[in-house]
């Protein structure tokens, strides 16, 4: 049996647990780690059945969300800082209140989150499909006469 208490890195593949062990619907509620494995005001990245997520402990609870900032795909596990319930992506300062999910600072898009619950000292996320953002494609501007513009 894998060590479930270290709280670091990827948890063991889900197939190593039976449905009765995790006590929930194996198809969508996924055990992420122990409740004490993520320190307050920190972010941890996990891979759950091939889907990358970041889980944040904001003190009053947990949030699970895609691993990239909805602004420009920055890796939130590295760029995000969490202070007084506010997650800020330090690249361009987009921020969200993790308690209310309100937008803060220059953020223009909401943070997409997976539903979470704590049960028996573990935390679970409801992951039935990967949450993704639409990022702006580069404008397809025609190149004719580019070099003669003044």
């Amino acid at each position, binding site marked *: 049996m894998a060590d479930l208490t270290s709280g670091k890195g990827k948890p063991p593949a889900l197939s190593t647990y039976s449905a009765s062990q995790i006590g929930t619907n194996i198809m969508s509620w996924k055990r992420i780690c122990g409740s004490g494995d993520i320190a307050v005001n920190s972010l941890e990245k996990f891979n759950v059945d091939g889907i990358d997520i970041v889980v944040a402990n904001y003190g009053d609870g947990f949030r699970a969300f895609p691993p990239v900032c909805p602004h420009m795909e920055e890796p939130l596990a590295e*760029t995000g800082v969490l202070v007084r319930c506010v997650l800020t992506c330090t690249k361009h300062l987009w921020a969200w209140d993790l308690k209310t999910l309100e937008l803060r600072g220059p953020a223009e898009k909401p943070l997409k989150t997976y539903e979470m619950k704590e049960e028996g000292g573990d935390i679970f996320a409801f992951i039935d499909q990967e949450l993704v953002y639409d990022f702006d494609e*580069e404008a397809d501007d025609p190149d004719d006469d580019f070099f003669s513009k003044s």
Partner: protein
Amino acid sequence: MNGSRYLSSERSSFIPQDTTGDAVTRAIVMQTVAGGQQQEDLVAAKNHAQWVANPPLPPNEWVDSKIYSDEGIFNEELEKIFKKVWIPVCHESELPNAYDFRTTTIAREPIVIVRGADNQIRAFLNVCPHRGMIVERRPAGSFLDGQPSGNPKRMTCMFHGWQYDMKGNCVFISREKEGYQDRLCKDDIGLRRLRCEVKFGGFVWVTLEDNPSVSLEDWAASAFSCLRKTLDAEPLEVFHYHKAIVNTNYKLWHDTNCEFYHDFMHYHNRVTGFNDAYFARKNEAFEHGHIIVGTFEVNYDKYEGFESRAELSFPHLPPNQWYMIDLFPGMNFNLRGSALRCDIVTPLGPNKVMIEFRGLGLKRDTPEERMTRINHHNSIWGPFGRNLHEDLIGVQGQGTTMLPGSEDRHILLGRHENQTIHDENGMRHYYSEWAKWMNRQASDPSKPYERPAAAAAE
């Protein structure tokens, strides 16, 4: 010796030391001269006046070594030539995936070459318009993944976090509204885009000139005509890269690529080549200062340990051919049957040049074919190959005698052999082109360019 001023520097090891025998010979000559009893027909060595006198050849058959050693002429070359012409900067196979990049410089200007999400390769000045910081500091890599000071899919200036997409558009200014209010916004900012084309076997060509005097096609198509079908038959791939920073002038390197008379230095080339077909190879000049040396069949099996390269010939070529294309102002494409070599020079100073060497094969090579091709390439042209270091010794030796401040010398390029391989018409053609761009005569750079009289033209 005017080289004595360098004796305390690191260059001292390159200053040839007189052997006792040479010193004695020179002393005897000097005595003869001092005594006024010199008989010119009997004394081959020269006194100073004789040494600096013009050779008995027309001025287009020698150049003044000042063009290799003078700092002012060097700076002028960067402005008048390197900032104006088409320069191959890398090969498209070095940017195989979207968001791959390479950085380089042309004439001291830093450049970044990127492959966009739309698969197009574009080039930009690698300079942030904000505070003049270099945007990307790595030699090569990918913008696909984030960096501590970078961003996925963006070029990020790490200094203040300004960001650009793969088309050079500014997509982010840190705390834009707070600092610039409505006075300056992203749309006012962008990287400087450079003309960039992929051509002639998949090489990436860039010019710093927005309105070049000729298109890339017109610049080099005639010189590439002998190999274009071969190079464009199917995708090529770089399998070898190394660079050398050599204490010599970039033109001396190009000269060495343009003249085959120095095959007397290459034992390998003599034993695998010196025959009637070799001496019949044509040395052809093309518009814009380019030249080619035509092909013949190399007898690789005449050199112990080497073997025929016929089985891996590039498309549409008979076995073991050897073509050489030399492009003004200093790029070389050298195809020896199974492997293509490309030299790109970046002049760093009058007496310093960076030469980037690339070896290319066919992209579809099997691993075994690729290993053989690499062996063919490296055994002649690799850093430990049979020929390359000899060429480097040659040009470094020239660089040693033509340090900035050294006395001007006459460098001869006056051989005439019916425009065949040991004719020096290629170099004469090059310096005639150089003179036009510089508006200076190569034999006397203090004089403006003069169009050669029709009778004297090659």
